[in-house]
């Protein structure tokens, strides 16, 4: 992966916060405009992947370690399913968000927000974990080729 080009580094450092802010904007405005969990998750993962591609996988793993990613992947599913169970425990059907608040409409809105957050966490961490998997292999292949080139 490229490490020596200065233009890419500068542009990446400029773009990275913009992409992350855009991802969170899309996530939380999923109710009022296009967006939602999936788009935001992929965009956020894309920001970290950009960082990993330009500065190397170890740098990206310093920011978001592999163990954190491995914990976040099931966490999102847990949040989603947990919200459904919460609806079950409060008296309604599974995945019915109405009893979460006094007004059923507000309950639905809150349920949608929580569920989208869970989707965001799972999608972002899965994309990142897949990238770490492929990128780690690429780094190994590069290291092996460099060793053979030196001999």
């Amino acid at each position, binding site marked *: 992966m490229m490490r020596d080009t200065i233009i890419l580094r500068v542009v990446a450092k400029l773009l990275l916060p913009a992409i992350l802010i855009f991802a969170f904007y899309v996530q939380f405005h999923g109710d009022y405009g*296009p967006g*939602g969990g999936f*788009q935001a998750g992929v965009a956020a993962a894309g920001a970290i992947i950009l960082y990993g591609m330009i500065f190397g996988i170890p740098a990206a793993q310093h920011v978001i370690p592999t163990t954190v990613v491995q914990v976040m992947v099931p966490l*999102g599913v847990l949040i989603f399913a947990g919200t459904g169970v919460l609806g079950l425990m409060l008296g309604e059907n599974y995945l019915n968000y109405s009893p979460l608040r006094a007004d059923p409409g507000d309950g639905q809105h809150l349920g*949608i927000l929580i569920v989208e957050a869970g989707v965001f966490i799972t999608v972002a961490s*899965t994309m990142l974990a897949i990238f*770490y*998997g*492929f990128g780690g292999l690429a780094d190994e*292949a590069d290291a092996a080729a460099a060793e053979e080139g030196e001999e």
Partner: protein
Amino acid sequence: MVITVVGIIRAHNLFAVVMLGSVYSFLMATVMVILDAVDVSMTEAAVGAGMSTVLLLAVLHLTKTREAPLRHKPYIPLFVCLLTGGALVYGTLDLPPFGEANAPQNQHVAPYYIENAEHETHSPNIVTAVLASYRGYDTLGEVTVIFTAGIGVLILLASGLRRRRENADPLQDPKDDAI
């Protein structure tokens, strides 16, 4: 998009194929915006033109091959594909005209969603409301599918995450016997 697909079929350099695939995804996202599907377009642009291309490029970097020429002339697949295409075109002749509000697919469930989604869920984006609330089960299944695919990839590529510096030959993988 048609030209892009023809280019993908004809190209032998795999890097060109991946780039053309990314261009194709982007064009598809544009077409989706024209078809008023803004959520879908954003997802397709992010996922198809972004994520898929990154993964394909990573695999290209790992395998480093160029496509070998075809050994057998592909007449039978071409014939089967043309036959399928002909049958599908014959099927599309029966579809209702494009863009009519009275077509049967716009009649039964969709007006209910359009009228009641804002009132019942307090969110103006009908697609998000339907996705997360009315059809929440499907979204739960989808998140589970992503989760399973992530775990599958991690298991298949497990040696990439463990730093095995002591092993001189990276092809000697003990998991080859286990799987």
